[in-house]
C-alpha cells in the first residue's frame, strides 16, 4: 500500500473559533492507482491535497507514506520526501518565468544534488516524454497553456516520484489542451505511475479509475 490515511482531521483555529475542515478522512492508495477527488470549492479538497502532499500536517489521525509515519518526520525529511517521492502539478503551472523549459524541468534535480550534465540530459528525456523536446530552450512566456502544463508534468516526473499529485490540472486550460493533458495522464497511468487528481469538473474526473467525492470535509465514494 502506497498511501494510508486513517481518521484524518484538520481544524483551523482554536477553541470557539475552531473551523473543522476535514473530518475523519479514511483513504488508501495503492501503487498504480489513478484516483480523482471531486468536490465543490470550500469542501476541503485542497486541504486534503496539501496533507497528502506533505505540505501540511493533519491535526489528528495517522498518515503513512510508503509505510513511513509522516507525523514523526521533521521539516527537512518532509522536504526530501516531497523532492524524491511526490510530483506536483498545479492549476497555474508555477513555472519560473525567467528560466527555460529545460531549466524548469531540471529544477528538482538541482535540489537533489545532481550534476549539471546529468540534469540536462534527464530533463531533456523528460521533456521528450511529454512531447516537447523541441521546446527545451523556450521560456514559459513563449509556450501555450497546454505546453506549460506539459512542462510542469515533466518537472513532476523528473525525480521518478511514487505519486503525482495534480490540483485542477486542466483548470486553466482550454478544452483541447485539457484533453491533451488527460491523455498524457492516461499514458503515465498505463506506464504504472500513481496519480491523484483533484478537480471540480466531472468530465475530467471521469478519466480516473477511482472517484472520490468530498463534501464539507467528509469523504465518500471509492467506486470505479
Amino acid at each position, binding site marked *: 500500500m502506497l498511501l494510508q490515511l486513517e481518521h484524518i482531521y484538520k481544524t483551523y483555529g482554536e477553541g470557539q473559533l475552531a473551523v473543522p475542515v476535514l473530518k475523519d478522512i479514511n483513504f488508501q492508495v495503492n501503487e498504480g492507482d489513478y484516483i480523482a477527488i471531486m468536490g465543490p470549492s470550500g469542501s476541503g479538497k485542497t486541504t486534503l491535497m496539501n496533507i497528502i502532499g506533505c505540505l501540511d500536517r493533519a491535526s489528528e489521525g495517522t498518515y503513512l507514506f510508503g509505510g513511513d509515519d509522516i507525523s514523526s518526520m521533521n521539516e527537512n525529511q518532509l*522536504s526530501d520526501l516531497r523532492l524524491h517521492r511526490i510530483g506536483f502539478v498545479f492549476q497555474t503551472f508555477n513555472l*519560473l518565468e525567467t528560466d527555460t523549459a529545460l531549466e524548469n524541468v531540471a529544477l528538482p534535480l538541482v535540489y*537533489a544534488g545532481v550534476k549539471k550534465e546529468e540534469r540536462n540530459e534527464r530533463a531533456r528525456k523528460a521533456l521528450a516524454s511529454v512531447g516537447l523536446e523541441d521546446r527545451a530552450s523556450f521560456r514559459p512566456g513563449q509556450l501555450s497553456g497546454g505546453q506549460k502544463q506539459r512542462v510542469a508534468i515533466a518537472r513532476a516526473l523528473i525525480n521518478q516520484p511514487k505519486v503525482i499529485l495534480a490540483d485542477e490540472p486542466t483548470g486553466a486550460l482550454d478544452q483541447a489542451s485539457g484533453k491533451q493533458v488527460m491523455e498524457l495522464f492516461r499514458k503515465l497511468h498505463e506506464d504504472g505511475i500513481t496519480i491523484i487528481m483533484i478537480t471540480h469538473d466531472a468530465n475530467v474526473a471521469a478519466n480516473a479509475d477511482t472517484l472520490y467525492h468530498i463534501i464539507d470535509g467528509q469523504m465518500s465514494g471509492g467506486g470505479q
Partner: protein
Amino acid sequence: MGENIRLSLKGIFSHKMRSFLTMLGIIIGIASIIAIVSTIQGTNRQIEKNLIGAGDNLVKVSLYQDGYTYYMDNGLPQGVPVIEESTKEQLSSIEHCQGVSVFRQRESYNVVYHLNTSMSGGYIRGIESDYLQTAGLMVKTGRGISDEDNRQLRQVALLDEATAQALFDGENPVGKTIEIQNNPFTVVGTVVAKEEFEPNIETMDDYYTYHQDNGGAVYIPVEMWPLIYQYDEPQSVILKADTTANMTSVGKQASEILNMAVSNENVKYQAQDLMEQAKQIQQLSQSTNTMLIWIAAISLLVGGIGVMNIMLVTVTERTREIGLKKAIGARKKTIMMQFLTEAVVLTSLGGLLGVLTGLLLAKLISMLNGTPMAISIPASVFSVLFSMLIGIVFGLIPSWKAANLDPIEALRHE
C-alpha cells in the same frame, strides 16, 4: 553554490536599474574609503621620501638641549669633549654603518660675504677630507678639501650651489675670495649632491621641515675653525647607514657612544631621526583621514540597509517562486542560501565597482592636487571582503524571511 551564483546574477541583471541603485550606497562607501586610503598612502610615501631624501641614508648626530638643537651661538656647552680618533673608530664599527665623518657647524647668520653680498640663512661647516664622500657630495667645479688643507691651515672654502648662486649670481666662484667673520677664504670648488633631490613642498610645514637642507652651505677645513670662532667647538657627526630602515638604529647607537664622553646633564648627543619625524607627520595626516574613513563607513551602513530593503522587496515579489521551490523539495537552508548568495553577490559587485571607482577618484585627486597616490592591494581586497560581509549581515533578515515562508501560503500569493 555555482547554481546559486548563477541565479543571483540572473536576478541582478534582470533588474539592472534597481540593482545598480541598490549597489550605489555600497559603491559610494567603498569608493570613498579606497580613495582616502590611496591618497593617505601616497602622501605618506611622499613625506617619507621628502624627509629621508634621495635615499642617501644619512643620519646626523648633534648636540641637543631639552629636545632642541643646541646652537653654539648661545655659548659653548660645558662638559662636551672633542671627539677622539678612537671614538670615531667605534662609530665606524657600528653595525649597518658604512661611513662616519666628524664636523663642526654654525648657522651662518650673515657672517659670509662676497664683496657686498651676504649669504642669508644656511650654515658653515668645518670638515675633514672624508666628509664629501660620507655626505654623498660631489665636486662640481674646482676641487674638494684635502688633508693637506687641514694640515697647512689653508684658508680655503667650498660652496654648494645655493651659496654660489647667492654670492656670485652665476659667475664662476672658483679662485675668488669670500669673507667669513672678516677672514678671507679662497673658494677652491663647488659641490652638489650626487643624487638630485627635490622635496615636494606644498605647505608651510613642509617648508620648515626642509628649509635647513636648502639654505646653502659653506665648507672650510675644520682646522680653520678656531680662526673664525676662536674655540675647538663641540662637533657633530654624520653617519651613513646601509639602508633607510637601519637609520634609526645607527643613529641611536652613535648617540649612545658619543654621550659616554659627555659629562653635561642638560646637553646630549641625539640623532636627528628623520624616520621618526616622518612617522609623526604621517600620523598627523592619518588621524584626520581616519575620521573621513568613519564617515565613509556610515555610507556603507546606509548602503547595507538599502540592500536589505531591496532584498525584502525581492522576497515579496518572488513569494510564489519560493513557495514552488519549497513545495517541490527545496530545504529551508537551500532557500536561505539562495537569497543570502544573492545579497552577497549584489554587495560584492558593489564593492568591486566601488574599488574601481575609488581608484579612479584617487587618481583624479592626485592629478588635481599634485599629490601622489598609492594603490593598496590589501585595502582593495579588504574592501571587497567587507562588502561581502555587509551582504551577509543585511541579507540575513530577508533570507530568513524567504526560508520560513509557508509553501501553501506562498503558492497562493498573487
